[in-house]
């Protein structure tokens, strides 16, 4: 398997402009002869579909939702980073690059991260021009706020609904191209396989979710923008429909899956309530700007928060990380919460929670100022918990939120399958082992608006593609495989629902491959998952039929893929014998409990190659070089 990163030579600050010059262009008149398939219409996919349509390519875009506007990017609350330095506080492209490499615990590819920081400034301009109503100062200029892992104020935001507004911007641009006839939009269509011809990605098999019809769509290149796999834990902040199927099917067709064990557990989510719980709700990291995190100093202290005097409270983030305090990065804040709860100092039902307290800020700034900043978040909290956070501290607990791992891509965002590109959360490239807050929106839009429109042109200009017809054996084979699988799922006729298996898998993964992992647990998981998979394929009951809207069938297919992915995640976590970012192996920690990296052996991305069902996947390595940000122990103290 070839893991050539294709990073251009030369100084890091000049790589992207040099590369843009060196890439071949497709003549404007020839662009309309090329077709491109884009799966997923979140920030990355929506932006890519719009931009490629504008350039003149014939684009087909697919989403499982009933509208492209509903992709889960919409739920991002806090903001989007950009190195504008509008605040004159010392920000620069270089600093955003540095913060992101360090925040990712030195497991991302430097050149990709630099490009991301470089492009970040254009993204804000583009979004403003589209009519995204960013927060403004009274003088009319754009406002900023701070986010975890940074000491400058570079986050642009639109109340607590930044993702929604950015996505609507991309969706509007996409709608414009649909109206112009450049993009053909397929809603309620789920991708179930990739079609490869002569080793290149040339199309997809999708299921019309209303009629069950399997359709073949062919093109010159395929772009996957299908998000992350955080729902492997069942409970996560992801939308219920988020799934790994598109990237997993691609993996099984030869695309390497990189760093699957790099998952982000977000520190500030509303704690779990009961068995019936279907998802977890994030409370934006921006709240940590004004909220202080604490637990009682005493174990098992069940007094209400207001009755616990100041000197009996442990503001543990401020204590342990004085220079970043409550704005410590996500992986660190999550682990610290787990630690105090493991010690028996957690609060709320079951002791799985910590306080996020706004009383100091309310006293200092007044309730009005806090209301201006966070009202919609406070309201959401109250709606869910029936508690008023203006009066009592919020209770929060970490939850699965984002996945840094994903399909391996080179500098051009192409996977190990030629013609198959992967953008946004679905790829692995920019966040290393931990993503900083407000960087997901940045990456999705960078990939979609400003990277893939160039790099895909280079591929098309350099590649001679034969015409492929829908009756090509590769198409028939892929459709038959999908059909067979659906038939199998419907035909099991067991007793248990897809959700019940998903819940079981989620619990297992949270216990063994969640916030902290160890060899014993991972080995146990690797024994338990195949057994769970076997029971799934023996005891599942789906009900209904393929030829109609069948949500139970949709879930079943996704759960089947999650079970397979879970095994790869545990394997990857087992093989990475170090702690870094979101991957914390209990065997590898400093005396004071911080992550202990092993740079000598693990300064690389691990990319897994599928070798067949029942055969062990093969681990390949892309070494990572840190030439611009010196490898250092990450410290937020």
């Amino acid at each position, binding site marked *: 398997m070839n893991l050539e990163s294709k990073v251009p030579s030369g100084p890091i600050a000049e790589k992207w402009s040099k590369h843009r010059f060196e890439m071949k262009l497709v003549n404007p008149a020839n662009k309309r002869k090329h077709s491109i398939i884009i799966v997923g219409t979140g920030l990355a996919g929506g932006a890519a579909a719009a931009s490629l349509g504008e350039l003149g390519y014939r684009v087909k875009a697919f989403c499982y939702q009933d509208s492209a*506007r509903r992709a889960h990017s*919409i739920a991002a609350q806090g903001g989007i980073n950009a190195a504008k330095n*509008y605040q004159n506080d010392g920000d620069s492209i270089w600093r955003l690059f540095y913060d992101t490499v360090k925040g990712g615990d030195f497991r991302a590819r430097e050149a990709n991260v630099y490009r991301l920081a470089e492009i970040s400034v254009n993204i804000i301009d583009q979004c403003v*021009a589209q*009519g995204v*109503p960013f927060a*403004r100062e009274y003088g009319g200029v754009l406002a900023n706020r701070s986010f975890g892992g940074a000491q400058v104020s570079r986050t642009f935001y639109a109340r607590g609904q930044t993702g929604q507004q950015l996505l609507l911007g991309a969706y509007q641009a996409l709608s414009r191209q649909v109206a112009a006839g450049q993009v053909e939009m397929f809603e309620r269509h789920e991708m179930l396989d990739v079609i490869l011809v002569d080793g290149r990605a040339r199309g997809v098999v999708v299921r019309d979710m209303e009629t069950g019809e399997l359709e073949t769509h062919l093109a010159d290149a395929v772009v996957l923008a299908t998000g992350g796999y955080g729902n492997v834990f069942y409970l996560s902040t992801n939308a*219920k429909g988020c799934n790994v199927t598109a990237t997993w099917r691609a993996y099984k067709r030869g695309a390497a899956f990189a760093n699957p064990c790099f998952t982000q557990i977000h520190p500030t989510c509303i704690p779990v309530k*009961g068995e019936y719980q279907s*998802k977890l709700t994030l409370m934006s990291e921006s709240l940590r700007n004004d909220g202080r995190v604490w637990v009682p100093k005493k174990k098992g202290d069940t007094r209400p928060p207001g009755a616990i005097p100041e000197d009996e409270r442990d503001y543990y983030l401020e204590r342990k990380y004085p220079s970043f305090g409550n704005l410590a990065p996500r992986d660190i804040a999550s682990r610290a919460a787990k630690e105090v709860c493991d010690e028996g100092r957690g609060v709320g039902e079951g002791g799985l929670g910590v306080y996020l307290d706004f009383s100091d800020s309310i006293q200092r700034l007044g309730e009005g100022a806090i209301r201006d900043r966070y009202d919609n978040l406070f309201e959401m909290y109250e709606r869910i918990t029936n508690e008023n956070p203006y009066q009592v501290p919020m209770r929060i607990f970490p939850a699965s939120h984002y996945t840094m791992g994903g399909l391996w891509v080179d500098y051009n965002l192409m996977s190990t399958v030629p013609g198959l590109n992967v953008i946004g959360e679905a790829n692995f490239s920019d966040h290393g082992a931990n993503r900083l807050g407000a960087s997901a929106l940045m990456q999705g839009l960078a990939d979609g608006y400003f990277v893939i429109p160039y790099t895909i042109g280079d591929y098309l200009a350099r590649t001679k593609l034969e015409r492929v017809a829908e009756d090509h054996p590769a198409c028939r084979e892929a459709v038959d495989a999908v059909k067979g699988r659906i038939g199998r799922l419907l035909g099991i006729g067991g007793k248990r629902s897809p959700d019940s298996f998903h819940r079981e898998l989620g619990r297992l993964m949270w216990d063994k491959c969640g916030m902290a992992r160890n060899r014993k647990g991972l080995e146990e998981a690797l024994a338990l998952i195949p057994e769970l998979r076997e029971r799934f394929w023996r005891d599942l009951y789906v009900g209904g039929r393929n030829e109609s809207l069948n949500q139970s069938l949709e879930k079943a297919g996704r759960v089947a893929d999650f079970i397979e992915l879970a095994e790869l995640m545990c394997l990857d976590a087992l093989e990475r014998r170090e702690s870094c970012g979101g991957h914390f192996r209990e065997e590898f920690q400093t005396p004071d409990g911080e992550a202990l990296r092993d740079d000598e052996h693990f300064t690389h991305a691990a990319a897994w190659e599928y070798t067949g069902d029942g055969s062990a996947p093969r681990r390949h390595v892309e070494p990572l070089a840190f030439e611009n940000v010196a490898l250092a122990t990450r410290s937020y103290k």
Partner: protein
Amino acid sequence: MNLKLHVWRQKSREDTGRFETYEAKDISPHMSFLEMLDVVNEGLLANRQEPIAFDHDCREGICGTCGMVINGAPHGPRKLTTTCQLHMREYRDGDELWIEPWRAKAFPVIRDLVVDRSAFEKVIRAGGFVSVHTGSAPDGNAIPIGKETAEESFDAAACIGCGACVAACPNASAMLFTAAKISHLGLLPQGQPERDERALHMVQAMDEAGFGNCTNHGECSVACPKGIDQKFIARMNRDYAKALATRK
């Protein structure tokens, strides 16, 4: 608590559909409304019956996917709340609930509580955007926008496109939805060059998609989970009238 549910069941677009009655047992007040339906569905599946189909995704009130009429009210009884954010603590033991899909000519039922809202896509595609190619934008601070203006634009942009306004309206009008997009863009300097054309085309698309007219009932704003103000409809009407009068 235990509840009695009367749920609209309809197998396909062609099917006529009917209410069927189910018991929802041992429901916790902390459950969301959709989690309550999850529990009912798990029970149906265990009895080899087909689960109730309903649209949902983010379950945190922002994607706009979910929506059903509960005892006559779109998204249920609680103000400013989507169905996924509605919690069972709103209900009491023994309550009887009638659960239906959005009812509107422009939103045909696909199955059970799932409707086809693609009519909204037609409205947006008619002009709900700013025509700016990727790469052609000036610096983000090149055009100052007053805080109040940005805030008012945001108030309109907060629309999640769920369709509750249409379901609530006795005329099944999509005026609030359309007005929200026209106002969001029309309030910003970036939206000015196409303001007239946008109003004309979007209103026309709305009419063609089969939505009814506004007769000032105001039910739309009451049902709107994001509290989009009816004043935006007035604003749209002004824009539309001006565009019509000055059309070249």
